[in-house]
């Protein structure tokens, strides 16, 4: 009984204690349910967001660049489908075997193979390695044929920049390539849209208009696992292609310029004398910008870099040349405007001019005899212009020259490599060289030698402003939102006013005091090309439709010694580097002029022999395309 009593007592104790613990259990379970409630009901939104943040990853795809078209809508910088070859390492069964197969199929270099192996070690196994960025179609077909044997290889189609005219527009457009770190950091838009494999403008308009051309990223949303591997695609958000940009250039003329300067170093610029549209702007030699898209090979790069004709320099904008005799129209105009000379004023040319025991030679040793302004221009008599410059003084000449655009950038902000050149005056010399001006320097400035440095585009603009009757124009290469038609520009100019589309007001664009003076210079330039003994008489076109007026120039690149003058060497006998630059500026047609051009052939010898004939060939094409161009003026209003 005692035992059973104690048994019952023990049972009571156990039961009592069980109830205490049972109550505690209920409280704890309620606590857990409360915690579940707070996580799953109260904070559900927060954790759902976190869960989505875990699993959804966005991939930005490279944006598609906007097209650049010429005046007629031809794409000159577009996009092309390219075929690429990717390897996804985790799908490859035998990596070394695959590389050997690919090496044979695509002729990959050992260096490339080593690079692929390095990439493989760096990347996650599901990240694709780009074996070849740009497969030819035949390579692509070949790979597809052997695909059964190439496990883990993925042929991919993607979009790449393409320049269909190869080297024709290189100096205008520049090119695109992979950005470096600094370029990404400097531009916020690039920074925001950057994805590996994206290319940005490195030079020219591609660089300048980067923010317009770049386009927006397409975005792909993927579900990823904890290791970042893509599991499936959730959404694809299309990107917008960058803005289309229309240039004022004419591909046919640009191409012709390239052909005319083939194998020569030099530059041709063609400009609409009323609207300031740049019709062509070619620097020779050029190079193929497509080479840079997928990383230029060292061999090709060295070939371009070491070419003695310097293809990397945009000669139209950054080439600085003495204008030589092409400056004479400005000297003549300045003298007329300042009433230093008139049409009757004559100078006797004896082939040289003595000044303070220094001899200044005319190009014609035996001299031109008594010459008037017209004859001096026509035959490019240096002595006449020495004398006129002496009478005029460099400061007055400088004023006229700067009015016509010398010593200033023509396109301003559009090209960072544009140079502003120099037209000297006494103040400039004092400030920069610390010495006083010497009268002899005025003389050589009068024939476009000495300190004067001009870009080919400046000479083209100068000529255009003489051709249009002496009105300032604002050269442009991009068709703006409100393009002024050729007729409107011409009419407003003839009223002496020009509608400036930027400030939207009419501005006085007159560059002359007396319209007659412009006319005199124009006539003199006409004579130089179309009258006997004119320096470019041989390059004239008699058909009034194409007839043009111009001025030759021959710029010395080194001082000619007395001995050399006596030797009177033929061009071929002089070392290339010492040969004169040949220049020619012209406008046409003479009646109702429309276009101006400037031609420079580096070390081409005399302007009349090397440069003027090019103008003859080019003018026919330019004038023939005028009607087409006119019809095209309202083709499409594309804005920047």
């Amino acid at each position, binding site marked *: 009984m005692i035992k059973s009593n104690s048994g019952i007592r023990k049972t009571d104790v*156990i039961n009592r204690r069980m109830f205490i*613990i049972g109550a505690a259990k209920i409280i704890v379970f309620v606590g857990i*349910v409360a915690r579940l409630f707070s*996580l*799953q009901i109260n904070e*559900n939104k927060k954790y759902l967001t976190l*869960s989505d943040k*875990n*699993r959804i990853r966005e991939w930005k795809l490279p944006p598609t660049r906007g097209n650049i078209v010429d005046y007629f809508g031809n794409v000159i910088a577009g996009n092309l489908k390219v075929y690429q070859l990717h390897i996804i390492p985790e799908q490859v069964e035998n990596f070394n075997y695959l590389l050997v197969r690919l090496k044979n199929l695509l002729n990959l270099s050992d260096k490339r193979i080593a690079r692929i192996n390095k990439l493989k070690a760096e990347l996650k196994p599901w990240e694709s390695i780009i074996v070849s960025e740009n497969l030819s179609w035949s390579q692509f077909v070949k790979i597809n044929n052997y695909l059964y044997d190439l496990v883990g290889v993925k042929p991919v189609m993607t979009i790449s920049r393409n320049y269909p005219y190869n080297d024709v527009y290189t100096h205008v457009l520049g090119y695109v390539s992979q950005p470096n770190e600094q370029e990404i950091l400097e531009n916020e838009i690039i920074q925001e849209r950057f994805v590996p494999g994206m290319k940005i403008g490195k030079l020219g308009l591609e660089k300048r208009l980067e923010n317009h051309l770049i386009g927006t990223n397409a975005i792909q949303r993927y579900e990823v696992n904890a290791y970042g591997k893509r599991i499936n695609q959730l959404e694809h958000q299309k990107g917008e292609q960058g803005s289309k940009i229309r240039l004022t250039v004419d591909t046919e003329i640009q191409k012709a310029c390239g052909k005319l300067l083939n194998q020569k170093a030099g530059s041709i610029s063609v400009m609409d004398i009323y609207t300031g549209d740049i019709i062509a702007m070619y620097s020779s030699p050029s190079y193929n910008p497509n080479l840079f898209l997928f990383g230029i090979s060292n061999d090709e790069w060295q070939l371009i870099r070491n070419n003695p004709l310097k293809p990397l320099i945009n000669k139209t904008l950054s080439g600085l040349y003495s204008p030589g005799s092409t400056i004479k129209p400005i000297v003549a105009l300045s003298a007329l405007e300042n009433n230093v000379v008139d049409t009757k004023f004559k100078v006797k040319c004896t082939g040289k001019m003595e000044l303070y025991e220094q001899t200044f030679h005319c190009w014609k040793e035996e001299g031109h005899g008594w010459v008037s302004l017209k004859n001096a221009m026509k035959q490019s008599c240096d002595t006449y212009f020495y004398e006129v410059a002496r009478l005029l003084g460099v400061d007055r000449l400088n004023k006229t020259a700067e009015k016509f655009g010398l010593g200033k950038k023509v396109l301003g902000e559009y090209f960072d490599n544009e140079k502003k050149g120099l037209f000297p005056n006494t103040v400039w010399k004092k400030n920069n060289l610390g010495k006083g001006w010497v009268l002899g320097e005025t003389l050589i400035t009068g024939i476009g030698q000495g300190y004067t440095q001009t870009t080919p585009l400046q000479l083209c603009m100068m000529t255009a402003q003489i051709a249009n009757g002496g009105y300032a124009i604002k050269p442009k290469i991009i068709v703006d939102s409100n393009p002024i038609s050729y007729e409107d520009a011409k009419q407003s100019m003839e009223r002496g006013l020009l509608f400036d589309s930027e400030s939207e007001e009419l501005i006085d664009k007159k560059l002359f005091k007396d319209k007659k003076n412009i006319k005199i210079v124009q006539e003199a330039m006409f004579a130089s090309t179309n009258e006997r003994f004119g320096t470019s008489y041989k390059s004239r076109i008699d058909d009034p439709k194409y007839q043009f007026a111009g001025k030759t120039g021959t710029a010395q690149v080194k001082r000619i010694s007395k001995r050399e003058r006596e030797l009177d060497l033929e061009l071929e006998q002089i070392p290339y580097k010492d040969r004169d630059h040949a220049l020619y500026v012209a406008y046409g047609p003479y009646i109702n002029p429309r276009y101006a051009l400037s031609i420079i052939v580096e070390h081409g010898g005399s302007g009349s022999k090397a440069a003027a004939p090019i103008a003859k060939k080019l003018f026919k094409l330019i004038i023939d395309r005028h009607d087409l161009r006119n019809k095209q003026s309202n083709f499409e209003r594309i804005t920047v």
Partner: protein
Amino acid sequence: MFQHDRLSNEITLFQKIKNLDYILLISVILLSVLSVFVMYSTDGGEILFHTKNHFVKLAVFFPLMIFIAFFNIKFWHNFSYLIYFIVILLLIYVSIFGIKSSGSQRWMDLYLFVLQPSELMKVAIIMCLAKYYHRLKIENVNSFTSITIVLSIIIIPIIFVISQPDLGTSILIALSGLIILWLGGVKIKYFIYSFITFLISLPFIISFLKPYQKLRILTFLDPDRDPLGAGYQIIQSKIAIGSGGLDGKGFLKGTQSYLDFLPEKHTDFIFTLFSEEFGFIGSVGLLILYSIIIFRILRIGSISRSNFARLFCFGYAFAIFIYIVVNLSMVLGLLPIVGSPLPIMSYGGSSMLATMIGFGIVLSAKINHKQMIA
């Protein structure tokens, strides 16, 4: 004294089957089926390694549970000490010849499956202490000798388990043992004094912890301290549970688990996956299912005539409760991370074996609830 023996010894097989507790049995079957489905989800919706193994283990251990149930509760009472000593021997064996894995030595290779004796100890210690208190006179419960003996019974296995090292299982063994002490009638003030002593010596204990264990405690206190390192598990676990919402993301649609953000989703974090896919409703449902099991075990204990069966059932019910609470508190970020599986749901043979043995003895107590044990 022997008048009741006749009754119990003559129970036929038919009566045994009839006397099984069907509510408990159905609950365990439901839980088992659920666990297979959840395991199928951890395998990414395919019948792979974990699903197959889990199913095979259930298929073996469930019949084992019934088999155990058909033995008289007296039999289990008689062999309680022996079983305890066998498990102690296994722990000693493991500490010498055990398989090492990720820094701890807990397992022994039985060719068919790998056994973790410390899991068996969770049940064995309850059996051992239940028998001890069953036989102990109520007057002697608070005697120095008896307290020393029961503390030794608890501390000996813990020394082996903690040196494996396995803090989680040690704590569960200790709590399972202490609850029998509590139920047996050890004075409340002893528990209070011990608890105070424990709190005071806590800093001292912490200094003995291994660096990874200290890190776990620090991480528990501030999971955002190192979100990609030590805090990763708990953060991802909370995201999974929280994002489940009211009704969950749906079966096989738990992105956190499917996309491998959840660590140890087969074992200790199985509830996280369940909760993500079935939401608050599912989680509470699971808790209710567990509560039914616990309640049935308590009920079986309270109808048992023998104090051994009563102590075992109450103790085992509490142990199950503690496993659940420790596991859920851990995945819910309420406790530091200690390795502790969720009964039946978690993948792991030893844990399931121990749980099924426990249920088997509980069912044996039910069949033989009228059995008196001397």
